[in-house]
């Protein structure tokens, strides 16, 4: 729906592309920004510019990072033999909070979801495969979300990785089904990690 003059409509269109923002919300946010003092609005614009400038994705694990290598990949105390596969960088935060995991991560940047046009090729799957040998990885923990897409992704990866002779485990059920990792409390997620089971 194009109703407003050029720049305003551009802003509404851009906001509408953000996840979870529908056309109505986009319009509301746009008008909020229009009413804002210029300094406040520019602070937001600047924060976006700085983050895009300085923060990128780790070239190894695709966690957010200020350099080519994120803090976790660069930490010599982390166990290089175990990698925990998650959907998004925010899931790393959730797992780190449990204090149960000392290995490294791999961020898929999503989950298999044909509805959204996401298949294995749109995820960082090839990059995961490329890490296995050079890093001497012998266990992969599949820590995707306990919902349909996360389970499907775990199953896909399990079928791909098992034949390579690795230990492939899935975090235990007991997490709230249908939810996201980030909503699970530390204790529950910690227990799910500890109780992970080898895929058959």
């Amino acid at each position, binding site marked *: 729906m194009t109703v407003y003059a050029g720049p305003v409509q551009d802003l509404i269109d851009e906001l509408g592309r953000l996840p*979870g923002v*529908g056309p*109505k*919300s986009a319009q509301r946010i746009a008008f909020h920004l229009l009413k804002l003092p210029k300094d406040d609005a520019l602070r937001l614009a600047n924060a976006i510019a700085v983050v895009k400038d300085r923060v990128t994705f780790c070239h190894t694990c695709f966690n957010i990072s200020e350099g080519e290598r994120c803090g976790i990949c660069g930490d010599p105390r982390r166990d290089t033999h175990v990698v925990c596969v998650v959907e998004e960088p925010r899931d790393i935060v959730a797992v780190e909070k449990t204090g149960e995991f000392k290995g490294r991560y791999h961020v898929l940047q999503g989950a*298999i*979801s*044909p*509805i959204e*046009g996401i*298949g*294995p*090729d749109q995820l960082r799957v090839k990059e995961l495969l490329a890490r296995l040998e050079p890093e001497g990885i012998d266990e992969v923990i599949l820590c995707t979300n306990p919902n*349909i*897409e996360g*389970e*499907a992704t775990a*199953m*896909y990866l399990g*079928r*791909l990785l098992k034949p390579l002779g690795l230990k492939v485990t899935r975090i235990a059920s007991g997490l*709230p*089904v*249908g*939810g996201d990792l980030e*909503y699970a409390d530390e204790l529950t997620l910690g227990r799910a990690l500890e109780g992970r089971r080898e895929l058959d």
Partner: protein
Amino acid sequence: MQLQRLWLRDFRSYASAELTFAPGLTALLGANGEGKTNVMEAIGYLATLSSFRGVPNEALVRRGCATAVVRAEGERDGRQLLIEAEITTSGRGRVQVNKQRLARARDLLGALRVSVFSPDDLELVKGGPAERRRYLDDTLVSRQPKLDAVRSDLDRVLRQRNALLRQAGGRVTAEIDATLAVWDAKLVEAGEALGDARAALVDDLAPVLSAAYDQVAGRAAHVRLGYLAPWREAGLARALEDVRADELRRGISLVGPHRDELVVTLDDMPARTHASQGEQRSVALALRLAAHRVVTEATGSPPILLLDDVFSELDPDRSAALLAHLPPSQTVLSSAAGLPQGAEPELVLRVAGGTVAAADPGLS
């Protein structure tokens, strides 16, 4: 749960309303279009987190408002329960029980159960197979709330799998093949679970159904149920292999619980095509009554009976028969034409112009 009080805010036609319910029969009286069904729908929402009229939740929010609230107070197993459900036009609704927010709204299922009878029930018999699948699945979830997860998993898997089949456009690359295998496995998992549960439910409904029909129609007849799920013989995995080529060509999932049929026969003839309208009404009532009894039996306590304007469509004999054979439990009935013969409510509520007022039960 025994419902004692209900508050509505910006729900459908109600800006705000407060209602009290009797432990036995409460009658909601008022002209059509005054909001009787909305009250029923609000109670039903707390049971299923959806509308029994089959509309999306946004439709429950009063026009021009962003949020509706349904609040109910009642007693369950000797404990007072306060349920508060927020319905929003955008995003997920929130649910609180005794002021504690539930992690997932779905955890509410089972706290309050309802059995809804409405004039649309005729579609159970006359309508397409989707109506009867919904009847089975609603009954399953009412009996065993856990199954709601299986049901919604299956919906989600089918949407994903159909999207993938469409994208494949008949061409199977290695990637499509590997991904489809995963969705097949997920479909088998959820599909077998739902198929088994439905078949078990049909077995439980069957013996109750004929008796319920006899009571409603006032004559003995054989009402039989058959759950048609041809894939259950060899298993869903095998059935999927058999239709693989067809599915890829048509870009849609062709086998599983979403294509099954519940066949209802009256004296060995399909009720959908061979019964009179009157008989079909009796069969529909019997289906609802049987479900109510099966759920009561399994859970140990009867769901709240919501009789939404059912008597307007029934002849006096069927009305009287239904009232006589309803199990004694909390019941809310609505009527635009006064009280049906034989109904003796403990409480009468008059509904008009978006407000509800208690009336003397002696006057109707």
